[in-house]
């Protein structure tokens, strides 16, 4: 990674607001939010539903643009990029992990992981190699050709994490990554995130479960479109059960 860039925040929101127009009523989902994430941070964003945490996540993920304010990602102002520009940022700088995994059905794990590289124009052979490495990294080296339906929830989420990792993004954004998993596999996934964090990957995670947030190094609480608390903490290590016997 570029040493110079590590000096400044990787993510910097300045006075970001998001207002939705529903009929005649204006709803402010985010109000004048300032928010920074340093490289290598592991941040958990907490909040109840309707707090604005999803909107915050969508803006961080370049899926949506703020109504006002600025968003610097990796030194670049992305708040005014058009759809093509945002697509390139998502492809190169960000990796996504969703609550419902969002893998392509009837498509092998390998092909699912190849997907971001397809749009980055990586040649087929290299795509295969890197996808295999990423799947091996998350402990699914033996299930390259399995389709999502043939995998357990935890395995599916690990395929999704491999997909987020494969294009070597600066930040991985995880939206309720354990929401559809039982507590045991949730801990496996959190353990994987902690490992990634030790490897220097920046993680931003949205959750409403304090247990899950306890594994992060910093907890941000959102309510009514504002950040009401932002605390650093000693992360609770996720007790790692051996990955190979994770099949339920």
């Amino acid at each position, binding site marked *: 990674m570029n040493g110079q860039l590590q000096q400044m925040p990787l993510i910097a929101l300045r006075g970001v607001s998001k207002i939705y127009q529903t009929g005649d009523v204006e709803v402010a989902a985010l109000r004048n939010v300032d928010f920074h994430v340093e490289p290598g941070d592991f941040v958990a964003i907490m909040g109840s539903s309707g707090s604005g945490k999803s909107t915050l996540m*969508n803006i961080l*993920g370049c*899926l*949506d643009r703020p109504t006002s304010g600025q968003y610097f990602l990796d030194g670049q102002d992305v708040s005014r990029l058009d*759809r*093509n520009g945002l*697509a*390139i940022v*998502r*492809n*190169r700088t960000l990796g*996504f992990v*969703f609550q419902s995994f*969002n*893998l*392509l*059905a*009837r498509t092998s794990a390998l092909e699912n992981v190849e*997907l*971001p590289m*397809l*749009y*980055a*124009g990586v040649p*087929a052979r290299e795509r295969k190699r890197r996808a295999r490495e990423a799947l091996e990294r998350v402990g699914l080296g033996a299930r390259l050709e399995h389709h999502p339906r043939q995998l357990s929830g935890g395995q599916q989420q690990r395929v999704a994490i491999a*997909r987020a990792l494969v*294009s070597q993004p600066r930040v991985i954004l995880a939206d309720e990554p354990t929401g559809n998993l039982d507590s045991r596999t949730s801990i496996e996934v959190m353990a994987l995130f902690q490992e990634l964090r030790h490897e220097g990957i920046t993680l931003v995670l949205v959750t409403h479960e304090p247990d899950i947030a306890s594994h992060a190094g910093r907890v941000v609480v959102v309510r009514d479109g504002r950040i009401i608390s932002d605390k650093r903490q000693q992360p609770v290590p996720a007790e790692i059960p051996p990955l190979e016997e994770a099949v339920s």
Partner: protein
Amino acid sequence: MNVLETMSLAVRSLLRSKMRSFLTALGIIIGVGAVIAMVAIGDGARASVQKVFDAMGTNMLIVMSGSTNSGGARGGFGSQPTLTWDDLEAIRTQLPSVRAAAPEMRTNTQVFSEDQNWTTSVTGTTPDYFGVRGWSIATGRRFNEADVEAGAKVAVIGQTVVEKLYGAGFDPVGQVIRIKKTPFTIIGMTARKGQSPMGQDYDDSILVPATTFQRQLQSQSLGKYITGVLNVQADANAGTAKAQQDVTALLRERHRLAEDAPNDFDVRDLSELANSRQQSTETLSLLLASIAAVSLVVGGIGIMNIMLVSVTERTREIGVRVAVGARPRDILAQFLIEALTLALLGGLIGAAVGLGVARFLASQFQWPLLVRPDVIFIALGFSALVGVGFGLYPARKASQLDPIDALRYE
């Protein structure tokens, strides 16, 4: 993402639901199949009609002599000989719009082989006749100018006559037949022509040199007059209308007719008949082609319909693709190429089906199997166009989806 990768992506996603893809393409399959089969049928029918008219002779004019008028009773065309051998020579040699001309003097009479007899039509003519009427020789040779000059007693004989006198498959060259008691040596047999558009058997006839006909088979000779009609073949480039004009003008001049005097002959254009037949088959082809075009459009609407369903069904997939970095144009290209692939595959299958149908019909109706590669390419091109045209709307819709809504779509 390059085109090839987008295509393999499209093919893979089509293969994921084979039955649906096939049913979607069915409209195009039927459309293209119909185009190719119908054009082949139209061409085959036209070729078989053409064959009939070619047998009659192409670009043909018939010149008939004038009518008698004795005491108010007027005879028909041909009842008064007015055309002379010199007229024929003039038409043949002086008009650039005329390729060839030959007399046709005809009588129906009994002919004898050694042990059989048959009543048939005997025509006295010149060597040009073979070309004008499109006769070719199966065995032996045609008679030539020298035979006409010498009044040789030679005959070229049609296959029906051969069958009646000698039996089928017999080579009659060298045999002697008697026509009105005069022995004629058979020097050639014509190739089979079949029926005229009016149902006459072309092959039931014997051709002999014009001079021999006059001397041996006519009870009285009219000297310089031709007791029959002239067959004139117009030059293909000049066309029959021009030749008709030229022949009329030439004959009026040669017959020294005053400007207001009526023609003492009649020039008829046989190609008109052929043209009207030709036109009716063309109208038929046009009709069939428009039906085919309609079914292609309906096929296209089918593709659009299913693509729209597919875009809705795959909303989440689109959301995921957009989230991991697909640009709107990547999504557009993917769905457009899917529609294009559907249409093209449908077109290819349709072409195969159409060729099969055309082959079957050709064998049923004994038409020649005519397949024009240009029609296949046009049909495939058109189905590609249909795919792109009708795929554009669903593909645009997919590319404009909001990723947040798409990812949340249930």
